[in-house]
Structures are given as C-alpha cells and as structure tokens.
C-alpha cells in the first residue's frame, strides 16, 4: 500500500561561519529507511524523542520532500493523489481561534474537495458534536486531539498516519480510539501510529518499527523483536518474611531494593523459554507472594539491546538527540 525505499531526509541546521552567517549543514532526520506498509495493518512506530518518528510520518504524508530514495503509494501517481489517500494527524495541534471546530473542519473539507456533511459526521464520531459551535480557544487539549483525529479521518483515507495520538486523551477516549482504529484496520485501512512508550501501543499495533537516531533498529511483531534481540522473559516477584534461598540454575535473580521493612522483591530472568504457570509455581510453594507479574521490556531496554549501547549511556545519548532535533 505504501512503500519507502532508502528514504532519506535531513533537516538543514544553522552552522554560522565568520563570513557566511547564514550557512547551514544537514542535521538530524531519517536515513535509509526501508518500509512496506501492508493493507489492514496497524504499525506502531516507537522510539525515543528525536528518533525521527515525526519526520518519517511527514515524509510518508508527502509534506517533507525526500532528499534521497523513493516513496510510492498504491493507486496514486501525483503528490496530490497521494495526499488524498493519506490522513495525517500531527503531534499536539493547538487549534486556535477565532472560529469553531465546525468551521475548522469545514475548511479542511473544502481543501479536500469533499462535502461539509462528512466533516460534521466525523465531529459527531469523535464526540465533539455538541461542542462543534464553541470557539476553539475554549477546548481542552484532549478535545483538540479529537479534532485532529477528525481532521485525519476526513475523506476516508486508506492510510492513516497518527503522531502521538493518545497524548491528552482520557482513558475512556483512549479505549474508544483503540476500538475505532481496530475497526478501520479490519476494513482494510493501514494505520501508522507513533509513540515513545511501548506500553501505549502494545495492545493496539500488529507490528512495530523501532527507530533510533533516524534509522530503523528493529521491526516486526513485538515478541519477535524481543526474541531477536535476545531479551529474556522477566518476572517480578515479591513477598514478606524470608525470601527463597535460590531460584534455580537457569534463573538469574536481581534484587529490587525496597525500604519497607520485611518486604522483598526480585526481578527474575529466565535464560530460555517463557514464564509458564508451572515455572511460576516452582519458585517456592512455601512463600506467600505479594507481587507476581511479568515485566514488559521498556523502550530503553529494547533500544539498548538493539543498538548494543549500555542503558545508562544510551539514556543520555537519547536525550541529547532531543535538542538537536527540536
């Protein structure tokens, strides 16, 4: 449905020199991205701040031109035709007045060449029907996110690009949003949704694309990524009184420092396999557990595994990207 081959885009950044104060150099962006977006797939785009997720989205939305590589969208021969197939929701749009949500959506309907009634229906769909005539300056961030979602859904796009769409949405709206996206994917739409936290997308995405420093460092279903990166299944256990003396030869235990009297806790890593109910039961039938839960690998762990960097070092390297990309 959408295919990127060796896609590269880098932002020009100012590098003033003594006799050329306006001089620029190519800075951060995306480099050599290969990506195929299949029909009916929800792709989670994950990475730390400054990884290039938003840039990749804007390249796919035909807003930023490719410096190198190709972008092809099924059934579209011109840039305008591509844009007609794609719905794009940027990160945190602070819709501004004067004007109402109805007027804002009607303007976009005109730009898309679709009837205004479609826009009104979408406002109802995202729960803004009863606030459609209110001035945008009275909207909360969550309501502005809903309006952005309605804008992205205009014209029934076959490809939806959603940049941090869950920011500012309340839990009920998030749940409704997930249901809506699943319905759209089931109807054949392809969805790309970005976030900097894996847990946001875990329940939603079919496949993941992990980005770091403008490049794809891992892709595929999350379990496959974790397996390929050699991330071991982790279980967090905790209890009161005496902890077990040993957990077994194939289990690596790492104590979690606690400051609460008799309570203790461990992170247990299995060398191979998964934490089955049987394995959990073998941990100590005589121990009363106060906590027993599997731990999802965090983004920093996955990034660390994918890039080979130490977590502590990678953390600062990730942060330093934010400033240069802003």
């Amino acid at each position, binding site marked *: 449905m959408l295919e990127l081959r060796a896609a590269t885009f880098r932002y020009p950044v100012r590098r003033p020199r003594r006799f050329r104060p306006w001089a620029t150099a190519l800075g951060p962006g995306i480099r050599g991205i290969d990506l195929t977006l299949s029909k009916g797939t929800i792709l989670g785009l994950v990475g730390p701040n400054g990884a290039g997720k938003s840039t990749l989205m804007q390249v796919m*939305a035909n807003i*930023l031109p490719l410096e190198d590589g190709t972008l092809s969208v099924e059934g579209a021969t011109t840039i305008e035709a591509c844009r*007609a197939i794609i719905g794009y929701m940027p990160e945190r749009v602070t819709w501004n007045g004067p004007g109402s949500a109805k007027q804002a959506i009607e303007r976009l309907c*005109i730009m898309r060449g679709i009837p205004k009634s479609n826009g009104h229906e979408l406002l109802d769909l995202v729960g803004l029907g009863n606030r459609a005539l209110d001035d945008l300056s009275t909207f909360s961030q969550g309501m502005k996110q809903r309006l952005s979602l309605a804008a992205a859904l205009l014209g029934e796009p076959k490809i939806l690009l959603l940049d941090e769409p869950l920011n500012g949405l309340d839990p009920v709206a998030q749940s409704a949003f997930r249901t809506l996206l699943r319905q759209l994917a089931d109807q054949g739409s392809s969805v790309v949704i970005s976030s900097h936290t894996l847990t946001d997308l875990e329940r939603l995405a079919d496949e993941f694309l992990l980005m770091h420093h403008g490049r794809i460092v891992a892709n595929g279903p999350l379990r496959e990524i974790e397996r390929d990166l050699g991330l071991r299944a982790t279980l967090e256990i905790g209890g009161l009184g005496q902890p077990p003396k040993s957990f077994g030869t194939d289990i690596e235990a790492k104590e979690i420092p606690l400051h609460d009297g008799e309570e203790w806790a461990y992170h247990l890593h299995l060398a191979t396999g998964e934490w089955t109910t049987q394995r959990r039961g073998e941990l100590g039938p005589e121990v009363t557990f106060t906590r027993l839960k599997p731990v999802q690998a965090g983004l920093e762990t996955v990034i660390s595994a994918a890039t080979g960097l130490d977590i502590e070092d990678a953390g600062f390297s990730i942060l330093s990207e934010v400033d240069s990309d802003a």
Partner: protein
Amino acid sequence: MQVSVFFRRSIQMRNRLQTIWDVSVHDAKKHIRSQRMLILGPLVIFLLSATCWGFSDPRIIPAGLTVNSPTDVLFLSSTSVVFICTLSVVLLGFDAISKRRLTGELAIDLSQPMPRSDYAWSRLMGVWLAAMAPTTLGILIGAVLIQSQMGIWPEFGDIAMFIISTGLLLWWYTCLQLLASSMARDIGTSVTLGVGTWLFFVFLWLIPTLIIAQSMGVDVTDTTSVAFDQIQEKTDLFSPNGVYQLLMETRLSSASQPELSTFSIWVSAISWFAIPTWLFCNRIQHLRP
C-alpha cells in the same frame, strides 16, 4: 478527442479556482471576525471617509493644497491608504503562516490534497479580501461625503481607479507580509519583518531617492527641480507606495500628470503583482511545517 480533453481540463480548472475562492472566503471571514479587525476595521473606515470629507471642504484644506474636483480629493485621500490600510495588511497578515506553523495547523493544511500553489493563492486572497473589505467600504462612504460637501459625485472611473490601485497596493503588501510570515520561525520576527518593510517604504524611501539623485549630480535641496522630480518618479517605480501614487496621478489633470508614460507605470504595477506573488507561491512549494 481534443475537445473532450479541453472540457475536462476546463472543469478541473474551474474546480480548482472554486476551491481557492472558497478557502479564501473562509480565511477572510476568520480575519474579519478577529479581535484585531474590531480595532482596524472602524479605524480604516473612519480615516478614509474622514480624509475624503476633510479634503472636500475648502474651508479646512491645508495651505498650499489646491482642490478643484473630486478627483483631487480622492488623490489626496490616498495618503491615508498609504499610511493606514497598508499597516492594516501588515497587522492582519503577520501571523497568517507563522502562527499556523507554531500551532501545528500548517502541517494539517500542507497534508491536504490541494496543490500548494493553490494553497498559496488562497492564503494571499484570504488576507487581501479581509483588508479590502473595510477599505472599499471607507472609499464608498468617502465618495458619498465628497458629494455632500462638493455637490458633485466623483466620476465612476476615478472611484474605480482608486479601488483598483488600492487593491493592487494592498495585494503587494499582502505578498510581502505573508512572505515574511512564512520565512519567520516565530511571530516576533514576522512582525519585525513586516513592520520593517512597511516603515522602509512609507518613511524611508526618500533616503535612497536622495542618494541616487545626489550621486547623479542633481541638487536635492532645490524643491522646484524638474530633474529631481524625474529621478523621484523613476525610483518610485521600485516602491509599492511610489507605483500607487503614480497610478493615482494618472487620473489627475494634465498639469499634475506624471512624466513617466502610463504604460511604464502599469508595467511596474504588474511586475509588483507578479514577482512577490511568484516568490510567495515558490516559498509555499518548499515550505516545511
């Protein structure tokens, strides 16, 4: 076959023009409803009509000015257009692009299937229509006041010329301001660029004129110098306000007509229309949100 291609393209073009117009009207309404228009609108209408009323009253005309006809009144009233209406364009358009960029709405606009050149035209027309609305109203009220003061209506050609020239002037300033707004990364820079351009053409344009005249050996202290007037007219072709004044002068009596040919003045006016418009369209083509 060729006929069907021609009709298909005509329909496509009609649809594109319709979209540009619809978006422009939408944007213009938004500008007209804005708080700043509550201040600018009445100010522009009042000033234009007040200057028409004042210059058409022989008892209060400043010494040294001679007013013989409504045409002269309209010409003198054009000074308020140069000072206030151009400033109103700057104040309406300084955040037309830069604010949308900051709020993220520009990214949504640019992701729509509307061609970017069409988008550029609609943005220009949105600001221009909003600025023209109170200006045209002010001119029409001014014409009525001239009739009530002098007892004769301004000629239709004079009013048409006044509105067309003013429309062109405001279009030039709209292009310059939106260009500045699209280049600026923040609203403060956009305001500075816009107001700076306005100050340069309104108040400082005489300085380059004097420098050019002096370097060509013309005595700039002689207020009756014909040579200086000729140089001034030529340098005015490179200023939007200068071209506007020259356009307005073409309607005056033969003694007050500019030395330059009407053709060269119109060529300059069309160039001022085409070049900034092209620059802005080109800027939007390569604009990053």
